[in-house]
């Protein structure tokens, strides 16, 4: 009997994506553990990683990290293929779409805080569309829009500031480069 050996060739790029996705998944778990009064209002801490990846390695890597985080986070939280999973998938897709455009804005003027705010609004916008079409097909949902918008603005700014700060902190970024 011949032994078949399946060899998986991984590139440094794969390793980087895996490591960053692991960090994002960790933050997603912390996110899920924070109690908040209203379903749908969440800090979205793992998006800090998405922002940093976007700034350092570009949109494609950011999309990989974000997608892996959504799927692996779904598995770890036991909500894979549940409504909550599709909500976070939709949010991630919408924010990645807007980040594709926002990442091209001139860096001199627009930084991670801009990306973060735009992505947060896209995130909640996409989720509202999905929720209205599928989960809560009633216009009463829109009474909550102001609350969601305020949360998107607040958490968007906070996450953007954290990402900007980490990007500027030499020690954090050196470790990053060192491991890569």
């Amino acid at each position, binding site marked *: 009997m011949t032994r078949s050996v399946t060899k998986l060739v991984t590139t440094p790029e794969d390793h980087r994506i895996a490591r960053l996705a692991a960090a994002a998944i960790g933050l997603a778990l912390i996110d899920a553990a924070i109690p908040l009064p209203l379903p749908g209002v969440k800090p979205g801490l793992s998006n800090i990683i998405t922002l940093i990846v976007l700034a350092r390695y570009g949109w494609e890597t950011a999309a990989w990290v974000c997608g892996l985080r959504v799927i692996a986070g779904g598995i770890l939280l036991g909500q894979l293929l549940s409504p909550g999973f599709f909500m976070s998938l939709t949010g991630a897709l919408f924010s990645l779409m807007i980040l594709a455009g926002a990442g091209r804005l001139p860096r001199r003027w627009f930084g991670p805080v*801009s990306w973060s705010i735009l992505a947060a609004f896209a995130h909640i916008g996409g989720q509202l569309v999905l929720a209205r079409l599928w989960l809560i097909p009633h216009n009463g949902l*829109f009474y909550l*829009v102001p609350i969601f918008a305020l949360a998107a*603005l607040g958490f968007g700014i906070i996450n953007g500031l954290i990402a900007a700060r980490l990007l500027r902190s030499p020690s954090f970024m050196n470790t990053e480069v060192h491991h890569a």
Partner: protein
Amino acid sequence: MHWLSLLRPGDWLVAVLGATVCALSFPLAWQSGHAEKAIVRRNGEVFAELSLSRNARIDVPGPLGTTTIAVERQRVRVVSDPGPHQYCVRQGWLERAGEIAICAPNEVSVQIVGGKENYDSLSY
């Protein structure tokens, strides 16, 4: 390092835009007029108009039997209905302008209207 130094000029612009969206979302989402009265319809025709400021209870005869509608503390609900599914009864209290409970089998509906009529749908 000061947090504000992390903001670039465009970031302020985006933040102001976001704040504007937030500010605009309040009147847009919460405008729907003050709930003033409940309109009870039978077979599409107005059967009664009930002021929400006064508690009331009326019986509406329909093809299946009697639907009872009650106004209490600025709200209105279907108390009982002969229909098989009881959707309109289970809907509970209606309190905002535009809300409607329809007891389709008995052809009775009750809707709250406010000072400003909201569009239920638009088509061109």
